[in-house]
């Protein structure tokens, strides 16, 4: 009970901090919507993405909402955790009754709270400016799936935060972030890639992540393969994060 309360107090302060950080807010909340408008404006409103039957505007909406959620959870977690490990704040917290996982939980929870508006802002831009129309259940399911799926990448962010330190954390995060976004087809459909890249893309968590949303847009249930791929990555990332966290605990 007490520890839940302690974790809540930390989540509250983490959130206040995230909302105060203008640069972070811009990048995670507005940036995906802006990229969405730029990308979708280059194609005609009736243009379809091959193999999906979706318009470019609809297809990109899910990609960019996923991209936005990815930005919020990945960038937020990795850099802050690495920085706070170095500054000794993580050590200071270990002198309190807060359980170790409470810290990771608070980081992930506050990232998830920021990622929600980033998804919604993309949806609003798509509906209001690009006239994307879907059924009510589809909107709700999309928010739910993209939000829940972003937890996979929150775990990845925690893992990077514990494995990298100092000057290395930003480049590593950037490489992972852009690599996963572009190769996974969040920026443009992976069907436009050369065959080799397409074969790689199929197995990336970001590809499966975007595919969940695209299935809903096509009024289908998300494919079991995509859910399975994401589940495997989630186990991998969170297992890695837990392992690195324990290693760091013994070293700190």
């Amino acid at each position, binding site marked *: 009970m*007490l520890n839940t309360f302690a974790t809540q*107090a930390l989540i509250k302060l983490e959130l206040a901090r995230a909302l105060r950080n203008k640069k972070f807010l811009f990048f995670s909340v507005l940036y995906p919507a802006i990229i969405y408008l730029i990308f979708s404006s280059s194609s005609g409103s009736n243009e379809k993405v091959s193999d999906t039957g979706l318009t470019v505007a609809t297809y990109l909406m899910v990609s960019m909402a996923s991209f936005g959620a990815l930005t919020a959870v990945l960038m937020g977690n990795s850099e802050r955790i690495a920085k706070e490990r170095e*500054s*000794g704040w993580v050590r200071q917290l270990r002198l309190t009754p807060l359980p170790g996982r409470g810290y990771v939980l608070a980081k992930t929870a506050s990232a998830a709270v920021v990622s929600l508006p980033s998804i919604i802002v993309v949806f609003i831009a798509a509906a209001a400016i690009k006239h994307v129309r879907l059924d009510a259940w589809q909107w709700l399911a999309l928010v739910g799936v993209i939000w829940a799926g972003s937890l996979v990448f929150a775990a990845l962010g925690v893992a990077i935060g514990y494995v990298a330190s100092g000057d290395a954390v930003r480049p590593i995060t950037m490489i992972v972030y852009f690599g996963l976004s572009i190769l996974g087809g969040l920026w443009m459909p992976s069907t436009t890639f050369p065959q080799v890249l397409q074969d790689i893309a199929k197995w990336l968590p970001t590809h499966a992540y975007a595919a969940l949303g695209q299935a809903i847009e096509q009024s289908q249930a998300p494919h079991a393969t995509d859910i399975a791929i994401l589940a495997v990555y989630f186990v991998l990332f969170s297992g890695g994060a837990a392992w690195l966290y324990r290693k760091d605990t*013994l070293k700190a």
Partner: protein
Amino acid sequence: MEDMTTTAAPATTTPVVGFDQVTKTYGSVRAVDGLSLRLYPGETVALLGPNGAGKSTTLDLLLGLKNADSGTVNVFGTGPREAIVAGRVGAMLQSGGLMEDVTVAELVKLACSLHPKPYKAAEVMARAGITQIADRKVNKLSGGQAQRVRFALATAGDSDLIILDEPTTGMDVSARQAFWATMREQADQGRTVLFATHYLEEADAIADRVLVLHRGRLLADGTAAEIKAKAGARRVAFDLEGDIDEPALRGLPFLTSIDVSGQTVRIQSADADATVRALYGLGVYPRNLEVAGLGLEQAFVAITEAEEAKQSC
């Protein structure tokens, strides 16, 4: 009635902290080497030692930030982590960072919500002397102010044991005095306080008991006065005329060290009165005789040097 007021003698009181044959090794370096010690309720204890003596590792082991390779660490009869979870320990580490992008007040409030037996944040800030900087961003603080905030985090609740790792680093003299006054209040409320320091005069002035740590081992454990005595409590200096019979001087009782330069002799003695009496007994006539007390710093250097000499033999 009498039974209720009877208090146990210190030796049988349950120790606040107990180390038993604790060893911690990093690669080939033994940071803590078979360390055994006890802290008792209400004591203010200084942990004294040069850099690399194992002070920080000792505190890390005490706080459960590191696990001992062998031996046991007890805090209030449980493991360190259990004692922290129960809110019995408040600590301020040198290596402990502060959360950035928040105000001092926000951070202190967080520390209060994390503590099982919290005080009010306003009260904690007043006691740590940071009320005036409550609205300042944590990353805009001076070194001394940051130390005071760390102290506030360590005293956010009603803990029974306060651990301070070189708490006055970065403070000027007046800030340091104010800090120790604050800390004394903590001790006066019956808390046990353990602080690591290399400001030896602080250990001398503040601690009831001083633990001298060297190469991960306990070199001395006693009051500051006892430690001075152990190292050779007094310094005796005098001039002699003519040839100086150094071997005879070396035979003086209670002598712990001797230095002859020119006609001047400087010795350290555990009992200056006895040494001086024996000096006259040698049939020499010392001039300009001076007897002075040793500061703890010199006492500490003497103990350390004696230890090192023993090791190199």
